[in-house]
């Protein structure tokens, strides 16, 4: 269990940066760097965080940070690890910090390559569910029903399940997290630090301007994503799924709040009518059913001598 006391007082991502009010990405990188510490190198592709860090010659980052092109996060991190290894430098945490576009869309090839090679770095996708830096265009992780500037009637397709894609690569550690639960995220990062190989954490990152909710509601919206079951907190390690945080208690449908409570907080779902909302509820329930089956199966396997 990770507690507030486990987070160092030291700040590595400074206030006064260029994040939007209520930005969950910047809250999360602050937490991430507290966990990873000074001996960290961050790789950031084109994404909100390329702006958030601030304009040259200033920077919000107190740790080493290299910006790279949109598709290049995982490949550049791989090269850095090779360089560090050849120079005999040990104990440096390399962190890939990319948005959903840079992970699920344009960057997935390089990420898949790095995963297959099992490169020893932590990759965090902070998923704000659209191309927010360019003004809210739909990405492959935009959820079904959400309005973006390129899915103007609401996206017709389901959200791409990137954590499952990473699990299929059989890397040592995959986890989901949500910016509204920083200690859960911190605990997962801490665990990832102790594992050799590629560690992938998919962090849901509510975005006030993109999701259309007031800036002060970020944590509330993030918590609703989890309590309605729209976003599941889990870890996958050694072939085994483990629910974490609030999600642990949500396996039964009656424990989960209705998805409508989540949808109604955000302008991006304003056109979702009764039928569409019910269909989204069915989607959530079927994803949980799938998870429940997996967990039951795991339990059965464990019981067998």
């Amino acid at each position, binding site marked *: 269990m990770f507690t507030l006391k486990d987070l160092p007082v030291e700040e590595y991502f400074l206030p006064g940066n260029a994040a939007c009010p209520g930005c969950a990405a910047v809250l999360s990188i602050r937490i991430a760097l507290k966990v990873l510490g000074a001996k960290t190198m961050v790789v950031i592709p084109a994404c909100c965080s390329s702006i958030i860090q601030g304009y040259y010659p200033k920077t919000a980052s107190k740790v080493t940070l290299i910006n790279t092109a949109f598709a290049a996060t995982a490949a550049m991190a791989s090269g850095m690890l090779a360089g560090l*290894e050849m120079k005999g430098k040990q104990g440096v945490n390399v962190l890939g910090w990319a948005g959903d576009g840079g992970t699920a869309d344009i960057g997935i090839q390089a990420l898949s390559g790095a995963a297959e090679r099992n490169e020893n770095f932590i990759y965090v996708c902070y998923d704000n569910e659209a191309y927010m830096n360019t003004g809210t265009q739909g990405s492959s992780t935009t959820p079904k029903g959400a309005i973006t500037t390129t899915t103007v009637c609401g996206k017709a397709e389901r959200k791409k399940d990137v954590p499952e894609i990473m699990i299929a690569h059989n890397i040592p550690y995959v986890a989901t997290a949500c910016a509204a639960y920083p200690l859960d995220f911190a605990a997962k990062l801490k665990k990832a630090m102790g594992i050799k190989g590629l560690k992938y954490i998919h962090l849901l990152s509510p975005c006030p301007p993109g999701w259309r909710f007031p800036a002060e509601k970020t944590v509330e919206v993030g918590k609703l994503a989890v309590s309605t079951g729209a976003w599941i907190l889990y870890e996958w390690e050694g072939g085994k799924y483990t629910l974490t945080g609030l999600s642990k208690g949500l396996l039964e449908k009656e424990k989960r709040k209705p998805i409508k409570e989540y949808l109604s907080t955000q302008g991006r779902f304003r056109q979702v009518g009764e039928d569409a909302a019910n269909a989204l509820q069915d989607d959530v329930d079927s994803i949980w059913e799938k998870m429940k089956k997996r967990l039951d199966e795991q339990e059965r396997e464990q019981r067998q001598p």
Partner: protein
Amino acid sequence: MIIVTGNHAVSYGVKAARAEVVAAYPITPQTQIIEKLAELIQRGEMKAKYLRVDSEHSAMSACIGAEACGARSFTATSSHGLAYMSEMVFWAGLGRFPVVMAVVSRTLAPPWSIWNEHSDILAQRDSGWLIMMCESAQEAHDTAIQSFRIAEDERVLQPVMFGLDAFSLSHTAENVELVEQSVADGFLPPLDPKKLPVFLDTDCPITFGNMLGPDKMMEFRHIIKEALDKAKPVVEEVARGFSKATGRPQVGLIERYRSSDAEVIVIAAGASSGDAKDAVDSLRDRGIRAGMVRLKSIRPFPGDEMKAAVGSAKAIAVVDRDYSFGLGGVIACEAGAYIGERLRSYIAGIGGRDITVEDFQGIMLETLQKAEGKDAGYRSETWWGLKELE
């Protein structure tokens, strides 16, 4: 002396240069370069890390990452690979990461073609890289080692790519004198990371590449302009130093071949330059004062050096194995900025078609004949040997 292909000559050069990270992706006709390096590294004959990446884009990204952490890095590619990598080629050039890359120059599709053309490497000419073009396997080997020295020179600190022509160089086995490790070590000191424009070090954290407004971008670009300008004497100096170390003559920016008293001169780059020299010799045998100027360096462009080398020759032909659609031959247009009035442009060898000794003879004779006619001037352009399609 051993008999090796141009590709393997490059691999052995990279080994002698003690590259520390090789990140690469296969593409014909470059693949042999990285196959040999993978073999040398994985068999423990070369102390380096080989990254089997997913694409050329990732190859260059990884090279940049490695270089940023102070490791000498190398990749090789061709044609579509280079085009696919292009975004990161610019990232390396504009970010000042002194990576070295071999480009086996090949036509871009469609239609599919694996044969030689210089359009791929020349399309990267505004990326902040130094660009060299080799004539022989020996030169490819020597250039591999010199490229690291030039790239890492404190006056330059920009990446270097060097081209070798598909098949005629890449796959043709020649006698090559490999540089001995002790000679290479004496010539090329280890990379000092502290000299790098961008060095990632957790003991001294920096942020590289964050947003920059219009108030400073021009100045950032001007630094690169100056680096490429300063690279000219460095290229010459490194060639002289390498020549001294190996006892073999080396070409810096340009090569002058029987050009000092020539009335007709052909300017070219790459592997067919050897045929151009043979053509010069046979014309000389017939009493025609022919000469050749070979551009080893395309960036920095040796315009003044080329202008001085052509002297007062009355007829000058530029043979381009490339084309900039809507403009003309790339080298002809660039040379034209220096010697425009006296220049005729020839487009030849596109898509790997042979440019023979006879072709070069014909080009020089035609240029000489038309030197005083109304066709003179660099806008004149001939697609040499163009046929009717069936």
